[in-house]
């Protein structure tokens, strides 16, 4: 025999701790830890309600299993998004507003496939100079963006 007010109190406590965790953390992964605690409070409450005498359809434990599954799916996608964010911005600080938008569309470079540099050099000198500028910009962009990549390399 067990008094069900104890697990109910624990569920309330866990939910409060989870809310604090979500609000007090800046690191995105640690915010997720708070979310997990809230989900676990919900689970504990489901199990508690399911062990009341006369609970129908085994709803408590079954719904708990469902919530655990949904939580697994949720955290997979959330961590994937966090990893992408880290790769794009170099950090997962949620208070530093990250620039997740695309860069303004670069104009379509002429002669996309193959080796445009050598082929177009003789034909259009002016255009080629432009393109070399573009090249340098691109390189800088690519390096800046590539910098955090090694950490994310093993992600996928």
């Amino acid at each position, binding site marked *: 025999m067990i008094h069900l007010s104890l697990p*109910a109190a624990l569920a309330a406590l866990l939910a409060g701790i989870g809310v604090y965790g979500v609000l*007090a953390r800046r690191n995105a992964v640690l915010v997720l*830890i708070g979310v997990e605690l809230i989900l676990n409070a919900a689970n504990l409450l489901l199990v508690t309600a399911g*062990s009341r005498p006369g609970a129908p359809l085994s709803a408590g434990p079954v719904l708990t299993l469902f919530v655990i599954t949904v939580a697994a799916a949720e955290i*997979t996608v959330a961590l994937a998004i966090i990893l*992408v964010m880290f790769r794009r911005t170099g950090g997962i600080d949620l208070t530093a507003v990250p620039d997740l938008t695309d860069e303004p569309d670069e104009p379509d470079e002429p002669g*996309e496939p193959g080796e445009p540099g050598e082929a177009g050099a003789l034909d259009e000198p002016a255009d080629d100079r432009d393109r070399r500028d573009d090249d340098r910009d691109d390189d800088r962009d690519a390096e800046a963006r590539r910098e955090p990549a090694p950490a994310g390399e093993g992600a996928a």
Partner: protein
Amino acid sequence: MTTRDLVFTAVGVVTALSALLSVTTKQVVHAALWLLVSLGSLAGAYLVLGQELVGLVQLLVYVGAIVVLVLFALMLTRAPIGPHAEIDTPWWQRLAGALLGAATTALLASLLLPLFSGVTADLDAPTTTTPQVAQAVFGTWVWPFELLSVLLLVALIGAFAVSRLVLHRDAGDGAERRSTVTSGAQAGGRG
């Protein structure tokens, strides 16, 4: 106070304390490890409540998979080792968070405790045993159960697509002309 009450109180104190530590510690990796302790002892709480299946699934999924995923994410995002104040919001925001958390606890407790006061579960003759749970999953709840497998598939593909699409564009707009072969090989390797 019965024996089960005492055991549940002990397990519950461990759960609550480790949960509290996991949201307050200044060391990033310790937070994940305290979460591990909290979820594991919560599995113990399910056992005390007489739901062995839920407790074991909790151990398998939460402790075995989710915490490991969180640890991997921390490692991949270069979590700093050692105490680090940068992972917390400023003190006034933490104070507001603590107030809101306490308010949540107070609200839920004031709602739930009267609801469950005096209610006891006789675990020697439990209302739901594991065979009953199994029959319910594959009887009453079979369609939600099937939907869940679709959801897992969607999450799998979604996580894959999220991490891959951006990689593609990353390799596409900057480095495409210089090293088409290399970026192709990288994309293949990541796939």
